[in-house]
């Protein structure tokens, strides 16, 4: 499934926005270059000039231009920078939790070279002026290129469509009512019909509110023990099946957000086999944690969809391996400390995830041999292509979007603090292995660890 939208082929790819920053010129020496899409996999030199990848060569083979910064990256890995199609920047409305600047800084620190922001803000991103003001903000302060999704329905109320065509013209990357499902099949059907005019994928938060009820965690043995109302897996999977059928019927293009249940993976597989233009994402927390991890009622592990049973987690991992699940997305959801310092059933749902995404998957899936590194890197970069955006690649001529990662460095989540304005990480206090040292995003240096300068014999060339 290519995931490209056939019906709106005439619309050019949306543009992402970032602050103006000088294109980097640097020579990365001796890193292990790994790009699963181009097949690149081995040590080499990578030269970036004026923000573009200018040359790739054997270790020690490239000459640094006089203006270039030279970086000994021996022992580190360079990947195409990760791409996160699911981030909550909380702007406008909850700038106490996150904003464009802090959220994109967290993204850069996590090795992301681009992100997509969800529209469930206050006010909702459902009109072109709100969208334009956010894009303007991003051009002033985003550390990595950011694209904005617009709502499918006005105020995400689920009843009337937004001006999808106008929003597309104003630069929306896709449409979603994320945070809420499109409850009415009739409304979603109309959105899929209107998609032929507006173009752009429709991303779906799949949940049947009737089945979720007042649920606060996965329905299963742990919820039975804790007496906490459960959210059954069928709350998600029945809606995935419904919406896949609608998309198939209308010839629409849909992307299923944050898959959590085994039954949902199966529903996506069936839809793909039937030729529906459907893609799907899964989050690092659903790929690593399970409902047993909620036993202590730690509110950082309360999210929607909830952490499910281990069989669900394993099905997600298999789906990621097989490609049934196309990409990893963090669903980075910052919440204020006082909101999370409440009893579990009262606390809001969500975890931050940008700064831990790669390290969590590397530690829990790659190091134990469950998934190859290449698959994880591919799925962490695949999100761009699903939304019709150029995929990051270690290829000469492309804009530099590169993460430089130390796969042997281990660290304790939260100990270095967070770049995000919030600290509700479900991985807090966990020891993870794999640390991002440098991120090039949109051709510019977006992040560099302070330790990099000290420990990597960083040589500045004379200007």
């Amino acid at each position, binding site marked *: 499934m290519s995931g490209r939208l056939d019906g709106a082929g005439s619309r050019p790819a949306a543009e992402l926005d970032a602050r103006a920053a000088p294109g980097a010129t640097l020579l990365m020496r001796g890193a292990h270059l790994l790009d699963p899409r181009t097949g690149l996999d081995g040590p080499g030199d990578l030269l970036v000039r004026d923000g573009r990848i200018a040359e790739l060569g054997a270790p020690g083979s490239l000459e640094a231009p006089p203006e270039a910064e030279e970086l000994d990256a021996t022992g580190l890995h360079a990947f195409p920078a990760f791409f996160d199609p699911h981030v909550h920047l909380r702007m406008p409305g909850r700038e106490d939790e996150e904003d464009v600047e802090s959220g994109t800084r967290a993204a850069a620190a996590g090795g992301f070279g681009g992100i997509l922001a969800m529209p469930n803000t206050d006010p909702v991103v459902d009109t072109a002026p709100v969208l334009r003001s956010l894009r303007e903000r991003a051009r002033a302060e985003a550390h990595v290129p950011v694209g904005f999704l617009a709502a499918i329905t006005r105020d995400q109320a689920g009843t009337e469509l937004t001006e999808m065509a106008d929003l597309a013209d104003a630069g929306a990357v896709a449409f979603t009512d994320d945070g809420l499902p499109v409850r009415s099949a009739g409304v979603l059907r109309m959105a899929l019909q209107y998609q032929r005019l507006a173009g752009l994928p429709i991303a779906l938060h799949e949940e049947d509110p009737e089945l979720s009820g007042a649920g606060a965690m996965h*329905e*299963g*043995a742990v*919820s*039975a*023990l*804790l*007496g*906490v*109302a*459960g959210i*059954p897996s069928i709350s998600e999977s029945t809606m995935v099946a419904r919406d896949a059928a609608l998309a198939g019927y209308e010839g629409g293009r849909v992307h299923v957000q944050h898959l959590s249940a085994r039954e949902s993976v199966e529903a996506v597989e069936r839809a793909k086999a039937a030729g529906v233009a459907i893609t799907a994402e899964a989050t690092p927390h659903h790929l690593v944690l399970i409902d047993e991890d909620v036993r*202590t*009622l730690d509110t950082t592990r309360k999210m929607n969809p909830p952490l499910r049973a281990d069989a669900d987690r394993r099905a997600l991992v298999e789906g990621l391996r097989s490609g049934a699940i196309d990409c990893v997305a963090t669903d980075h959801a910052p919440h204020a400390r*006082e909101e999370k*310092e*409440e*009893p*579990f*059933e*009262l606390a809001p749902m969500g975890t931050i995830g940008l700064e831990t995404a790669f390290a969590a998957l590397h530690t829990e899936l790659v190091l134990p041999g469950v998934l190859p590194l290449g698959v994880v890197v591919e799925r962490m970069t695949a999100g761009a292509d699903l939304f019709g955006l150029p995929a990051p690649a270690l290829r000469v001529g492309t804009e530099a979007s590169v993460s430089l990662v130390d796969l042997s460095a281990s660290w304790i989540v939260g100990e270095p603090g967070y770049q995000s304005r919030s600290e509700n990480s479900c991985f807090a206090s966990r020891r993870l292995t794999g640390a991002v040292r440098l991120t090039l995003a949109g051709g510019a240096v977006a992040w560099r660890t302070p330790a990099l300068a000290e420990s990597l014999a960083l040589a500045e060339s004379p200007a």
Partner: protein
Amino acid sequence: MSVEDLTRADIERILDRAQSFAEVSGRAIKKVPALRGRTVLNLFYEASTRTSSSFELAAKRLSADFVSVRAQGSAVDKGESLKDTVRTLSAYDPALVVIRSPWAGAAELVARWAPAAVVNAGDGKREHPTQALLDLYTLWQRVGALDGLKVWIVGDVLHSRVARSNVLAFRRMGCEVTVAGPPTLVPREIESLGCRVRASLDELAEADVVYALRMQRERMEGAFVPSLREYAARYQIDGRRLSPQQVLMHPGPVNRGVELSAEVIDSPQALIAQQVEAGVVVRMAVLYELLASGGQQEPAAGLGLQAPVPAVVEVAGQSA
């Protein structure tokens, strides 16, 4: 916090202690000075008559100072968070906080934020450990050893913290536990707690102990059962269903004519009044265990508590 934190030995020690306090309750002056000078604070976020009053009596019979805070009419009504309320009340330096809250895990949060020992007097629909202890005590007083007893817990298991604590507690003491109720009111995968599940009372005759749960009328709003009439017809414990060799328990308050018929409530098989009576001595034992038996066991053992300071050792009835 949870019956899960208690070993069988912990439970037996508490029951033994409760029995020794039962002797005190028989005296004209029902007081021992074990907790003199210590403060016990009741923090109740939900209406409760028997639980809060029995903790109050238990604290007073152990000579503790007692303060009661209710959510209604307090700063909680003005939007104060649990954390701030706990921090504020900690300024009174309570030795122990008894917390009842509509939210699962609230007792753990109080323990995290307060230096006092904490007793969970009901957290949401999760657990009510002291109810389970007093039920074990009542049953033990009546029938002796609990090993191998067949216990049926009947009714709205889904919304019942009593059911969850009691399944765990009866299992811990070696009972065989069955939960029975309308399938809409029995949580999925409850079997993982170590009990069997039945949708009808057809096999109720095998039970040694029938433990009926309160059927809350407000559950009707969620349409969990079509009608109370049908519920009563299928699940009410009445003279036909209850055989003379079985004993009947109920955590109260009873809905007469719904989960229990009037004839069984007033029958000699019913231990309902004894359960209430046991509430005081068992809670005395719990308070004593946490505050006055320092050094005899790991502080965290009892109820999963952070007993904060090595408590002054005082033996009941003997002033230091």
